[in-house]
């Protein structure tokens, strides 16, 4: 979807502000949000792409004015309610209770059931593979000139706007991976296809405003790409590496 999350190349976004000795979590609620997310992922409530799509569906002004972990809260509220872990009304009541009672959540002194502890530990230590074996051969190979499609789907996609329509060169073939655009719909449709690292020279993306000697490599699924063979506009990458 053409959302504000897709911010590559935007102007007027402010200064980059590194924070010296930044803590992993600035406040306890950020850590709680992270922990709740790991618990939800362990229970299988979302794939990464469903989760990302839920964030992308935040109202644009809200997305831009809230922090990363607030995005996570929005995504989890949306998905947990949509998938029936609790209702909107139950969530409203829990919020009211949280606001009224400042004591720590009950039950922290109880032991964690071993199977839950093991499941969460496995998710952290192993994650989940997104690569898949597919029977077909890859359509493109390293060195091929390809053009990113100009599509503008309303659903989830990882085809960032700043490369759409641009011509680049395949520099890595990563193998086949689950397809975000269908997986994000929440029905488990993986439709795996090949993913390639595609390199664009700066001028192809930014024209006369490109900085000298800059290239941009982005991972794109096969259906985001079309062959640019025979294209006269294919730029030459000076590969000094």
């Amino acid at each position: 979807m053409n959302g504000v999350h897709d911010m590559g190349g935007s102007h007027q976004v402010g200064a980059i502000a590194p924070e010296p000795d930044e803590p992993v979590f600035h406040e306890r609620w950020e850590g709680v949000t992270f922990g709740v997310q790991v618990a939800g992922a362990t229970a299988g409530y979302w794939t990464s792409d469903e989760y990302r799509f839920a964030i992308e569906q935040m109202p644009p002004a809200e997305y831009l004015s809230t922090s990363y972990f607030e995005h996570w809260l929005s995504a989890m509220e949306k998905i947990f309610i949509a998938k029936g872990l609790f209702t909107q009304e139950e969530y409203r009541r829990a919020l009211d209770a949280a606001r009224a009672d400042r004591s720590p959540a009950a039950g922290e002194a109880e032991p964690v059931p071993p199977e839950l502890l093991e499941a969460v530990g496995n998710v952290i230590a192993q994650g989940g593979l997104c690569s898949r074996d597919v029977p077909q051969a890859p359509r493109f190979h390293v060195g091929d000139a390809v053009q990113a499609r100009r599509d503008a789907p309303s659903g989830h996609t990882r085809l960032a706007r700043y490369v759409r329509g641009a011509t680049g060169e395949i520099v890595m073939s990563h193998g086949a991976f689950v397809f975000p655009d269908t997986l994000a719909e929440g029905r488990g449709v993986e439709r795996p296809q090949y993913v390639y690292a595609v390199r664009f020279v700066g001028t192809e993306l930014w024209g006369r405003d490109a900085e000298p000697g800059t290239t941009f490599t982005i991972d794109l699924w096969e259906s985001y790409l079309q062959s640019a063979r025979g294209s006269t506009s294919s730029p030459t990458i000076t590969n000094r590496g």
Partner: protein
Amino acid sequence: MGTDHGHHPAELSEAEARAKALESLLRERGLVAGDLIDRVIERYTTDIGPLNGARAVARAWVDDDYRARLLADATAALQELEIGGMQGEHMVAVPNTDTVHNVVVCTLCSCYPWPVLGLPPRWYKDAPYRSRVVREPRAVLNEFGTTLSDDVEVRVWDSSAELRYLVLPQRPAGTDDWTEEQLRELVTRDSMIGVTKAVGPHQATFGSDGAQT
């Protein structure tokens, strides 16, 4: 509590209340129990951080065979050092050279190799970095104190799929007689994102309990 207006502690922020509401509902449903959340927080604040990536980089600096394995199959090479897991399932290492400087971003969300570098800093997740580094990376690197001549290609990697990128910085000059353990101190988080180079031998501060930021 809560009746003594004007003197009681600040109300919960909206975000605090939302996090607490989610935690309580997950507790009721059995997805969270006991001190599970604290244990997860503990993992990501003590065990999982940029010191992991620094171990791999320092190994690659002293061991050419390891370096070759890291560049050929980073996931497996990191696994040799027991580094891996959620958000690091598919790793790619990209080496800086005299003519190429690599830097990593995720413009669409904030993908980041958690098991290798820990959770990302705020600036990596916020709009300015995600917007600017794919348009004017030299200007961004300058702001991080990294000035490169025009004949060095600045190669930006936008981690838009499930591959996670680790920049392999160049070993600083003047460290030929350094041990692997000493070299780890020169490998910062930012140098593995690629916004800086590894720390020079004269800037190193020993005795810190983790890779510097």
